[in-house]
């Protein structure tokens, strides 16, 4: 008899992939301006470190919250005891107000339909537990966040079937691709329970268009029992046009108020990206489906948000002036960083997918591959990690169908460090271009690299990323 469970001994958590080499190498040799200027710069972490000063200055002005006090009176006891899975009402109210503002107040959210969870990781898994089981699948457009393999499949038993998107139309979801994915699932004997999209997209950094969103709503309306999950955790990071359009706005526009499709559309949110607070584990599920809300609320028992954290954030997000100021300034800073990365890469002859959101760019390095294969992508990636000293994320880890794309983060480091990264890119490309002309040298270099290349098939990837 097997000692542990199947889940414990399989590798569906996705963390055994050689992709982790990049992380490990960074840990061994992390860049530090003073102590290790030649170290590896971390560009694989989708964190927002640009606006902590705004949060800190709010805290300085609001000392009561720090001391577990409300109106000067200690509420430590009440907070310490508060484990109601309905969540702190003042926090939920502040959260839905924040979410509505991010959507230009074109939609409103009912706090009674919000379920709080320990991060988006937990929100996504919980939704899966509610909507799908073994033998069923969700369709996801590629490229997608590697962590979904763990969050959606591992303990739930559900499957993911990719909707293949291509660079020829900027990776937008097309109807043929959607139908193809649906057929693929059926061929694999999987009942399709819905589509999950990330909007704005990770790793693309783009907001979904109205036509894509309508296509998806049409699609789930056409089929029975299908859901649409919209992971909108980057919704507050949209820094330029076109603006953000939430699926909830689309539903409202379609004017199908009494339409039962409202029961099958669910939104996932989190404060990890927009506010830069991944450590606080604040995630949320929003659904108009009462049964889903009821079930998910009970399930949230397995990962409630610390009452201490709910209280702090209810005060912070409840401060209307603060949150408006924060959102605007945060977006301004993100835009600046994004421009810095894009122009820096341009100088190195590298282009990016045009993007208007997120904490990263989807970078096109296909022209640097010696062949249009994932092996070549891996080779290039290892070169960038080891020789150039930049930990970026290869597109294959995001299940991209085309080799040569990489996700590069820009919001988790100082401006100086980003500048240095750009210099390294430029130097690398210049060197590569030179080397390509002298083939013996190039093939020697290639030989020395192949010992680092692991055997990887484009489909058989278990990818993981601790942070998005």
């Amino acid at each position, binding site marked *: 008899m097997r*000692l542990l469970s199947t889940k414990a001994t399989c590798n569906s958590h996705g963390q055994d992939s050689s992709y982790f080499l990049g992380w490990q190498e960074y840990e061994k040799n992390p860049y530090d301006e003073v102590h290790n200027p030649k170290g590896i710069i971390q560009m694989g972490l989708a964190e927002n470190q640009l606006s902590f000063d705004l949060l800190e200055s709010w805290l300085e002005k609001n000392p009561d919250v720090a001391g577990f006090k409300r109106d000067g009176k200690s509420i430590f006891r009440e907070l310490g005891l508060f484990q109601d899975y309905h969540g702190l009402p003042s926090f939920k109210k502040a959260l839905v107000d924040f979410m509505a503002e991010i959507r230009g107040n074109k939609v409103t959210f009912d706090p009674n339909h919000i379920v709080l969870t320990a991060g988006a990781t937990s929100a996504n898994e919980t939704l899966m537990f509610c909507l799908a089981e073994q033998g069923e699948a969700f369709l996801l457009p590629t490229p997608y966040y590697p962590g979904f393999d763990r969050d959606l499949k591992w303990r739930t038993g559900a499957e993911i079937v990719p909707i293949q998107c291509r660079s020829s139309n900027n990776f937008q979801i097309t109807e043929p691709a959607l139908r193809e994915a649906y057929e693929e699932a059926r061929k694999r004997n999987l009942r399709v329970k819905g589509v999950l999209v990330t909007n704005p997209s990770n790793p693309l950094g783009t907001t979904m268009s109205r036509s894509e969103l309508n296509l998806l709503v049409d699609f789930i309306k056409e089929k029975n029992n299908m859901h649409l999950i919209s992971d909108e955790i980057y919704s507050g990071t949209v820094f330029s046009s076109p603006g953000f359009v939430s699926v909830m706005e689309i539903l409202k526009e379609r004017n199908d108020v009494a339409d039962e499709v409202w029961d099958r559309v669910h939104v996932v949110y989190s404060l990890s990206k927009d506010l830069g607070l991944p450590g606080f584990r604040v995630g949320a599920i929003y659904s108009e489906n009462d049964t889903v809300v009821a079930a998910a609320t009970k399930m949230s028992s397995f990962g409630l948000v610390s009452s201490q954290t709910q209280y702090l954030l209810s005060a912070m997000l409840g401060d209307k002036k603060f949150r408006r100021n924060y959102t605007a300034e945060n977006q301004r800073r993100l835009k600046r960083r994004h421009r810095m990365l894009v122009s820096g890469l341009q100088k190195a002859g590298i282009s990016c997918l045009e993007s208007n959101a997120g904490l990263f760019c989807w970078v096109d390095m296909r022209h640097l591959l010696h062949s249009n294969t994932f092996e070549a992508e891996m080779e290039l990636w290892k070169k960038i990690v080891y020789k150039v000293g930049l930990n970026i994320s290869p597109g294959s880890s995001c299940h991209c169908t085309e080799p040569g794309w990489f996700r590069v983060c820009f919001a988790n480091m100082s401006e100086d460090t980003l500048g240095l990264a750009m210099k390294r890119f430029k130097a690398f490309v210049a060197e590569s271009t030179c080397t390509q002309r002298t083939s013996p040298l190039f093939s020697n270099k290639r030989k020395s690299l192949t010992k680092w290349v692991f055997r990887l098939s484009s489909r058989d990837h278990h990818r993981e990323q601790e942070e998005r």
Partner: protein
Amino acid sequence: MVLGGKSQQLLSKIATNDKHGENSPYFDGWKAYDRNPFHPTNNPQGVIQMGLAENQLCFDLIEEWIRNNPKASICTPEGLHQFRNIANFQDYHGLQEFRNAMANFMSKVRGGRVRFDPERILMSGGATGANELIMFCLADPGDAFMIPTPFYPGFVRDLCWRTGMQLIPVHSDSSNNFKITREALEAAYKKAKEDNINVKGLIITNPSNPLGTTLDKDTLKSLVSFTNEKNIHLVCDEIYAATVFSSPNYVSVAEVIQEVEHCKRELIHVIYSLSKDMGFPGFRVGIVYSFNDEVVNCGRKMSSFGLVSSQTQHMLASMLSDENFVTRFLKENSRRLEKRHDKFMKGLEEVNITRFPSNAGLFCWMNLKSLLKEPTFEDELKLWRVIIHEVKLNVSPGSSFNCSEPGWFRVCFANMDDETVDIALNRIRAFVGRETKKPLGMKRWQPNLSLSFSSRMFDETAVMSPHSPIPTSPLVRAT
């Protein structure tokens, strides 16, 4: 109530079945409390909540510590410089200083008789999350864990709901003081095998909820050797470890394995939490501590689904590594629990209500068999409803804990102040007094309402979850 066909196709089975346990009739007690909650001045005739195993006795000590240690918060001027590092920290290993402090605290709770390795400490969303996590690591859908009765009703949800695991109750009763005997374990194991059920382990709670007792060393050793012999897991839920207030001293399974020859440590796992010992369930601090490397590895990855807020980790790292504070807190906590326990016991004794002798926990296991007309679960539930609606105390009937004999009730005593305890005791005294004055055979408390429920109700997943669907916190009402 299982939802109709439409929902069942649209959603998963897990979402639409009953296995979360919250549709049980036992929620009557919660509802009655919520409709009419006791308040010393605003509602002195209201229902007193005695169904919540909370530890509210030592908040003043913690508040004092927080006041004196502003650096422990990342929001105070003294601690603000840490804000961004902590807010950004989502590593599922957890803050090193937090794990060190937890290991240290867990060791102190066990009198320093055992050391815990910080590298084996995994975080989870409270003990609720911890119990589910360990089952995901150890059992596949359809597998089973044995569990001695009576047991915490929430286990049915925590261990079985999403994991697909099943529980095999191992019954004990008052005839031998609810001891878990080797014979009972062997019999349950054998029967499971005959029924083709794959038993993956045994789960115990020590100190026990609802009994409030600690296991003696010999019993623990026999549990270790039983599970070792069968090559199955032993999961020990030790969340009440620091609520031991009188002898015998607490013995943790972690101590026992040091003394068992050729012990297969890789089969032993401990569940811990700060919700009961320290009294802050709101902060969701659950711990899985496993002696099995593979479980630690896999469990750590799973903890992503319920990490402890880094803000909370940081605060507790500071608090729990303050040796003086911890020593003082543990001592005072025990002292206050003992005092509260003794006060309550005395009150019960005055009306000849016996209870199961206990040395730990936040509750007592009260024997009301003498008040039952017939020794049946039906009568137990009838009595229970009277206690809720007429005596106005929300207590927990033994059947909700899967107790094998009727007449037992769990009554919590650490979630209220002294005055409320007095009022509760007065009500109990008045009620019992009325009952004992009646001629034999005629019990006053025939309920007016016709109660319709099947006698198999106690077999259902009876849950009285602390995460009640009914908001009762003043923080909820205040907004």
